[in-house]
């Protein structure tokens, strides 16, 4: 079985991306609402915007899936009229790349909570890279910047990492993920027992 993406993989990724694209679109107003609390509290919710990459990879477990899912979801968010307009897409590319690189560093073999969390952080770094250029990060006072970064990373860990992992675990219990995952060597060997 090749490690390349088959049509079914792409279709499943696309469906996941559509669902999360919608969530991303709705998350914009949620984020704005949390801003009212002040003190960079809305950064705690930021991790939701990377979650398609980790969920898609944990379900399908193939190279490229995290990037495709994130970009597709970001694109769909943009098309639905997100307030960030084209930035939704460009940020999505950076975030997807961040997650994809982390999964690649694990040689696409790790599907653990740790891998998901680190991928979340990777995506977070991608978003921060974009923020440095497009946002006002560098203008912030150090205490403010500290809050910003810490909350952002907490969000990556909890939402992009933890929430994605447990979401996929719940899906696995229903058995729907069995058919989309690639075949392992162990499965192939057990054919000849």
């Amino acid at each position, binding site marked *: 079985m090749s490690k390349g993406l*088959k049509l*079914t993989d792409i279709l499943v990724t696309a469906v996941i991306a559509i669902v999360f694209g919608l969530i991303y679109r709705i998350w914009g107003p949620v984020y704005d609402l949390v801003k009212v609390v002040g003190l960079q509290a809305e950064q705690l919710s930021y991790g939701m915007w990377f979650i398609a990459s980790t969920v898609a990879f944990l379900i399908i477990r193939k190279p490229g899936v995290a990037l495709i899912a994130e970009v597709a979801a970001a694109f769909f968010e943009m098309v639905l009229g997100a307030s960030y307009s084209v930035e939704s897409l460009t940020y999505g590319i950076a975030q997807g790349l961040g997650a994809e690189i982390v999964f690649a560093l694990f040689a696409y073999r790790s599907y653990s909570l740790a891998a998901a969390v680190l991928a979340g952080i990777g995506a977070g770094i991608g978003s921060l890279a974009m923020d440095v250029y497009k946002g006002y990060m560098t203008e912030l006072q150090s205490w403010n910047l500290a809050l910003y970064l810490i909350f952002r990373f907490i969000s990556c860990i909890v939402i992009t990492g933890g929430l994605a992992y447990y979401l996929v675990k719940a899906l696995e219990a229903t058995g729907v993920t069995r058919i989309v995952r690639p075949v392992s060597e162990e499965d*192939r060997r057990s054919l000849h027992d």
Partner: protein
Amino acid sequence: MDVAAGVEKLRLKFSGAPALTFRDLSLSIRRGERVLLLGPSGCGKSTLLQVLTGLIPHAVEVPVSYESIVVPGRWGFVFQDPDTQFCMPFVDEELAFVLENQCVPRGQMIPRIEQLLERVGLRLERLHMPIAQLSQGMKQRLAIAGALALEPDVLFVDEPTALLDPEGTAQVWEAIRAAGEGRTVVIVEHKIERIVDYIDRVVLFDRGGGITADGRPADVFASFKHRLVEDGIWYPGVWDDYTAGRRYSGASGRGANRKLPDSPETTGVPAAGGRETSAASAGTEPLIRLGGFEVYRGKEAKLRVRSADVRPGEWIAVVGPNGAGKSTLLLGLMRLLRTSGGYELNGRPAGNTRELADQIAFVFQNPEFQFVTNSVYAEVAFSLRKDKRPESEVAAKTEQLLDAFELADRRDQHPFLLSLGQKRRLSVASAIVKEQRILLLDEPTFGQDARNTFALLEKLEEWRARGTAIVMVTHDPDIVRRFATRVWEVEAGELRAERSPQEWADAVEAALSGADSQAGAAAPQAQPPLAEAAFAGAREADEDALPEPASVGGEPADLGRTFAAVAVNRRKER
């Protein structure tokens, strides 16, 4: 021997499965053959079709190995679910998509599409019709047209009528006969009544994915009749066998002496062979009384009931054409849709859904829609736990139900991992947990095999005999004839309760047979039916030929009878 499709020494194992699905299986299909693959649910027949077409392992990754394989150069596949086979929203676009992939020039597409639709008997007012507006039978015929558009050498059909009503089933088999002309056809099916005379080879699989029998239909059916019963196949005469068997007549002391309760509201008490309802029912107060009852979807009243009632021990079959409002009626009775008008429950005006849930149990058509927990046990225990019953009571009740529904060994499994029959049993078990006196079921036997269907009907009959009132939406005239005490006919949003179960069932079967002869199905009926002898002999067979669900084995049918008429003809003669 010209092999159209085949595989040698196939080994296949799904990830995480405890055992191999196929161990060194070899099967080859000759050009021009019409093969039927039969066997118990879950034994791998559909998987085998997917291997023979190359879908496994190229589209779906499953560990598989074989010595050699012959995949047809051009093949078409028709799947089971009418709703999941299309990628375009419109009929013409769907077929155009297939033609596009065949590099058919644009100018030739419309004539080709019209030709294909004509072939499968699909007459539409216009080509640019949304697929969602088609009936399920029409959708399946469209799927067959799509497969035909590929100009396949081999046509694979995987339980195409499992999710269709009797009318849709008849239409689809007609379309497949038309589509299969001049081609090799490989069929997996459970409802074989309409195709026993069409196929020329039967391959019978066992539970472990090996082949028990492979030969001419007459031979296989004659020697392995007990397997058909065990595997829950809907063969011609299956209802007659069941009725003649011990379990049906023993189930509730039925027989010739049955009487319908006195029901002044409903006209037309049926003629011979009424049903003995429980002692309490005759002359008792109705459990439900409807008067000027209307059920709304949005602003519109979709269903009107002038007057009707439901008494203990009744089994009311709600019948009618698709879209007439049968499900709407049930949802209205449960107040899941807005209603107006007189609705009395146990003599008092009915309350909201929560109050109704204590008296009325509701079972959805798709069992998956009811599942809210992650394990079978939790699913059954759910309502009791919500009512804050003591855990000991919950445990006792749940265990009892799990045993009664044969789900005890699956108690920790996720509901979505169960088979269709098990899901259905779970949905009924979790609905009836409060021992409600009224049970509403929306097509509970839909898509089920014969064994599960009979088991469920017997269970319902048990409850009915104890005084539970059953209101069940169904399409199946066989069920109505043998189990219903009354029929509510719903047509265009109006409820009528005039005909008896027998009258209605007769009318429906006459209409179906009439449609057969009209459509020129003379050819199959004219030929001496090969396989019918095996089925025909069943009437004299030993009663033990009908095993309990859990047991194995039974005795082959007694072949005292000679070749007789086709099962469809037999029904007409009755």
